[in-house]
């Protein structure tokens, strides 16, 4: 049986959770078994919200609503998930490779001595063994990783599989786990509000030093607002404090894999590419035709962003009005 850990964030299952369930359901189908979900902590409107995970292919949702889980402690979570794996008899455990998955999956792997593929980008190949493809060398290559243990743990890169909806309702079952006492106290949580979180975004508009100063960020934001995209920036921009650090993408900042990465005035140093090269479509606007980013791009315009970007925003508005 395939058990998917669906992370609840402030009482809700988010897009990455739906994607992990969709992915786990397809693995279960290929293995001829069922996909069941594990949810820890308090979920708003739980019966309805969890039954709805059937839409992504889950037959059952095991729900352990113990309040201890409302404070995240990877040690407590991994121990509880290990107990759940034993209780429900799972042999494949799926996580999303998010900040939460990155903290728990390795602990669970070590606890169960179950091989882990961290950052999977494809369904397991089960024709001979259990082999999962993942990105290595910061996106410059793939590795096919064989898992040699009876229980397999996979954490799926966000946006690598996509959310797949179908008809269905899952049976919600209360799961009684006996969590250990946590050793971490959460003192403060600071969320960036009012914007599309970068990690979840399907569309990202990003600006670099070519925009000359923070006062010109309307060139990024106008398009982002028009198409509902998140905004991001290069390291130079974050280091100059033109934009907040959480917007920095690249090797030292965050890695993103949206459907569209639209780079304005970013030269495309190899360190920047390492954080964005998983994007499905890359667009580059740069006045320097020699900018290395063009080599990694799908579409490009060699031109002045100050002239080109307002025209693009107009064209998008026109397209939206006619479609």
């Amino acid at each position, binding site marked *: 049986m395939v058990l998917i850990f669906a992370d609840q964030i402030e009482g809700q299952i988010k897009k990455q959770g739906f994607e992990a369930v969709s992915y786990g359901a397809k693995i279960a189908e290929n293995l001829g078994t069922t996909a069941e979900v594990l949810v820890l902590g308090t979920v708003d409107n739980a019966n309805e919200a969890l039954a709805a995970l059937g839409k992504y292919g889950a037959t059952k949702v095991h729900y352990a609503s113990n309040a201890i889980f409302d404070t995240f402690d990877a040690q407590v979570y991994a121990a509880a998930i290990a107990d759940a794996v034993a209780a429900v008899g799972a042999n494949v455990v799926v996580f999303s490779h998010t900040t939460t998955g990155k903290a728990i999956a390795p602990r669970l792997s070590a606890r169960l001595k179950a091989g882990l593929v961290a950052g999977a980008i494809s369904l397991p190949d089960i024709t001979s063994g259990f082999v999962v493809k993942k990105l290595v060398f910061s996106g410059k290559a793939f590795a096919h990783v064989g898992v040699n243990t009876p229980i397999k743990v996979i954490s799926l890169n966000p946006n690598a599989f996509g959310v797949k909806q179908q008809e269905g309702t899952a049976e919600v079952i209360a799961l009684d786990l006996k969590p250990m006492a946590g050793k971490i106290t959460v003192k403060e949580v600071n969320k960036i509000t009012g914007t599309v979180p970068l990690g979840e975004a399907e569309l990202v508009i990003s600006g670099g030093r070519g925009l000359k100063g923070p006062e010109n960020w309307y060139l990024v934001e106008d398009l982002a607002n028009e198409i509902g995209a998140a905004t991001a920036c290069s390291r130079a921009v974050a280091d100059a404090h033109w934009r907040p650090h959480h917007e920095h993408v690249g090797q030292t900042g965050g890695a993103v894999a949206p459907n569209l990465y639209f780079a304005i005035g970013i030269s495309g140093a190899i360190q920047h590419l390492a954080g964005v090269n998983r994007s499905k479509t890359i667009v580059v606007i740069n006045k320097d035709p020699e900018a290395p980013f063009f*080599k990694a791009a799908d579409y490009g315009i060699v031109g002045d962003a100050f002239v080109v970007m307002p025209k693009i925003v107009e064209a998008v508005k026109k397209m939206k009005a006619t479609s």
Partner: protein
Amino acid sequence: MKILVCISKTPDTTAKIAFTDNNTKFAEAGVQFIVNPYDEWYALVRALELKEAGTATSVSLINVGGADNDPIIRKALAIGGDDAIRVNATEGDSYYIASQIAAVAKEGAYDLIFTGKETIDYNGSCIGGMISEILEVPYISLATALAADGNQLTVTREIEGGEELDILSLPAVISCQKGMAEQRIPNMKGIMGARTKPLTVKDPVEADVLTTIVAFELPPAKAGVKLVSADEPEELVRLLHEEAKVF
């Protein structure tokens, strides 16, 4: 407080990635190797700062690998650290490596273990979590700031769409990323001193290997960029809408 910093050897960020032996081995010929940037810039430097502030009593480095890793370990020691340990093992997966580090950490009674947030070659983000589970201690991943007061740590970590401030007691394992510290360039004194710092080589302990890389694969070459004239930005919008179908 004794700190153990995990140091990995990785190809330089700009290295050309290629494979040999029927795509089962990374082609090392001509590749420049470096200390994994997250280990060096954030984990090691923050550990050194804690020692300079008098919070940590010692900073030791650990690496799992063959003798050809020694130059990288010396490079890290040139930035700082009292001594280094290399577990002499060249095979194995992340669980095997984590088991080696955990064994050394236990034997040396280290209070705080730092790793980088991931290595830039295998990009697993696994070692810290696995070490913490084997040692049965708390783990904070993707930390961007850390303060220590006696036995107590205050750590800021990245969460989805924001950050969280956590308080915990030693012992602990922390994976470090940008924000923890600023990169340091080794000076001549550090480079000279690194040559004589103790580097102990240990034999590996028995540990399982849970996964194996069956094959590597290079991504297909990009079809090449489709350039649109700066005078026709609406054509770009049409292509994104109709061809790439991104909006």
